[in-house]
């Protein structure tokens, strides 16, 4: 495999701010594995945003030989899914990319879908493993990871998003810095129509569900909206947060922001206290990274047990 493997790298937020996004670094690690498996391919990163230049050189430690940055103009000023996707597609052509990878995040999935469509290529989302070839063979997640799919991808440019935590993102401190070049895509005004025009700050105070060390979970078995007061109290006492099943949000007992699972949040606490939750696969995919689960349930046969 010669040519390049282009990786869309997001700037980090929260704990990772000032650097690259964690899942993007995992994606670079995966790209490096692909490149070593089929030697000759060169891993090249692509980043958008005013802060990108400073971060880009460090991507060398994560396997990128080169980094292309768009750090001024409309594309750097605000996220614009169609324009970013078009720029990724344009660079993929310019660099004769054999693969275009992105993190399986909200933005990564969206940008890669735009880029793949522009390139006239299929896209495989949430990939765990891939072998280059004609066709490529891949393993990807279905049902948010409750099921795996082995598939083929018959395309001159393989477009993939990486499932979070499929591979570890390890920095190799001795590696050469990535050579940083700025990239100026030809952006059409139509692609800039949809872009971020406003921000609202997060509401301060409460422990975030995704960062909590202890999560007290409640399901249908909790019985009512009022009964959640006890769970809130326990969560407060333990310095944790309340998480709930979909039955609870569908009944309007708790807001959807507290839902854990396939269509809610993914949590990774040290302890998850699951009260009156049966343990449907769509719930489990949201809490399987918990170190321990303490289940309280009247049915000893329920799947959570």
């Amino acid at each position, binding site marked *: 495999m010669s040519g390049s493997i282009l990786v869309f790298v997001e700037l980090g937020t929260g704990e990772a701010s000032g650097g690259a996004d964690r899942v993007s670094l995992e994606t670079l690690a995966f790209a490096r594995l692909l490149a070593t498996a089929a030697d000759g391919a060169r891993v090249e990163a692509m980043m958008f945003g005013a802060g990108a230049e400073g971060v880009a050189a460090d991507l060398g430690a994560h396997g990128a030989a080169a980094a292309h940055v768009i750090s001024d103009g409309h594309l750097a000023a605000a996220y614009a899914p169609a324009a970013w996707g078009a720029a990724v597609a344009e660079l993929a052509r310019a660099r004769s990319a054999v693969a275009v990878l992105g993190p399986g995040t909200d933005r990564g999935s969206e940008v890669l*879908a735009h880029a793949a469509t522009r390139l006239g290529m299929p896209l*495989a*989302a949430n990939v765990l493993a891939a072998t280059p070839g004609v066709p490529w063979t891949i393993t*990807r997640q279905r049902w948010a990871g409750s099921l795996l799919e082995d598939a083929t991808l018959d395309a001159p440019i393989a477009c993939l998003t990486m499932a979070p935590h499929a591979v570890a993102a390890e920095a190799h401190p001795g590696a050469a810095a990535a050579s940083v070049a700025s990239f100026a895509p030809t952006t059409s005004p139509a692609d800039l129509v949809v872009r971020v025009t406003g921000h609202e700050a997060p509401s301060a105070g409460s422990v975030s569900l995704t960062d909590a060390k202890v999560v007290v979970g409640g399901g249908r078995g909790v019985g009512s909206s009022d009964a959640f007061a006890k769970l809130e109290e326990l969560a407060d006492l333990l310095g944790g947060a309340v998480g709930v099943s979909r039955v609870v949000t*569908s009944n309007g007992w708790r807001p959807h922001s507290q839902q854990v699972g396939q269509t809610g949040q993914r949590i990774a606490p040290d302890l998850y206290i699951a009260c009156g939750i049966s343990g449907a696969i769509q719930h489990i995919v949201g809490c*399987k990274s918990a170190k321990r689960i303490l289940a309280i349930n009247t049915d000893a046969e329920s799947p959570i047990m």
Partner: protein
Amino acid sequence: MRVLVCVKRVPQTGGRIVLTADGQQIDTKFLGFTISPHEECGVEEAVRIIESQGGESTVLTLGPAAAEEQLRDAMALGIDRAVLLETDGSEWDPVSTAAIIADTIRAQEVTGGPFDLVIFGNESADSGGFQVGIRVALALERPVVSGLKGLTLGDGTATARREAGGGGWETYELPLPAVVGVKEGINLPRYPSVPGRLRAKKKEVERIEVGAAAGGPAALGGMAVGPAKSLLRLPEEERSQAEILGRGADAAPAVVDLLQRIGVLAR
């Protein structure tokens, strides 16, 4: 106002997934069927828009004849009419799915007028391709944004809201006609009423037979298709051992002991 919402019939899996012996499908012998929660919210959003602005809502699916059930479910919640692109039951990849949905939208618009808004789920429940809505929007040359947890329609525009990476929210403005991908949490869907169910039985379902995916670059104007599924597998169970700490209040001492042992409670 004319609104279209796209939904996909999927098995309602519960505690564990059982696959057919050939590993090609989920064994649905003992399962019901549903749509993704994201799409349920898409249906609710379409119903609310038409309730407040007037006009007509349509639900569309590409699936087997039995997917009429999901269309009727949507109509029971207030969707006005339905379009069933009837397959032979075989799986369609996202490129082919998007191509036929875009073609169908064009044809529907010739007869019924343009859709101001086309609503997709952020991702399908089963295959989770994260792309059909975006592909359709690009084919129709309409603005699109995914992942929405808030949508307000103004005069010829839509204001959309989605969660930002580090917490908080980001907003987008889209001129109509537009395409959106929505997430669960954008609204709280209503439950169907008995009169709603009865009315749904009488509503129109337009059936268009499409069979198997045509596939291939020639059929889709140069688009390569895929990915092509070869086998489904269950992930290896990371399941560790389970220990019963006790029943009822008798379990309390063991629970306290555990919480102390793992450092959640001070000794």
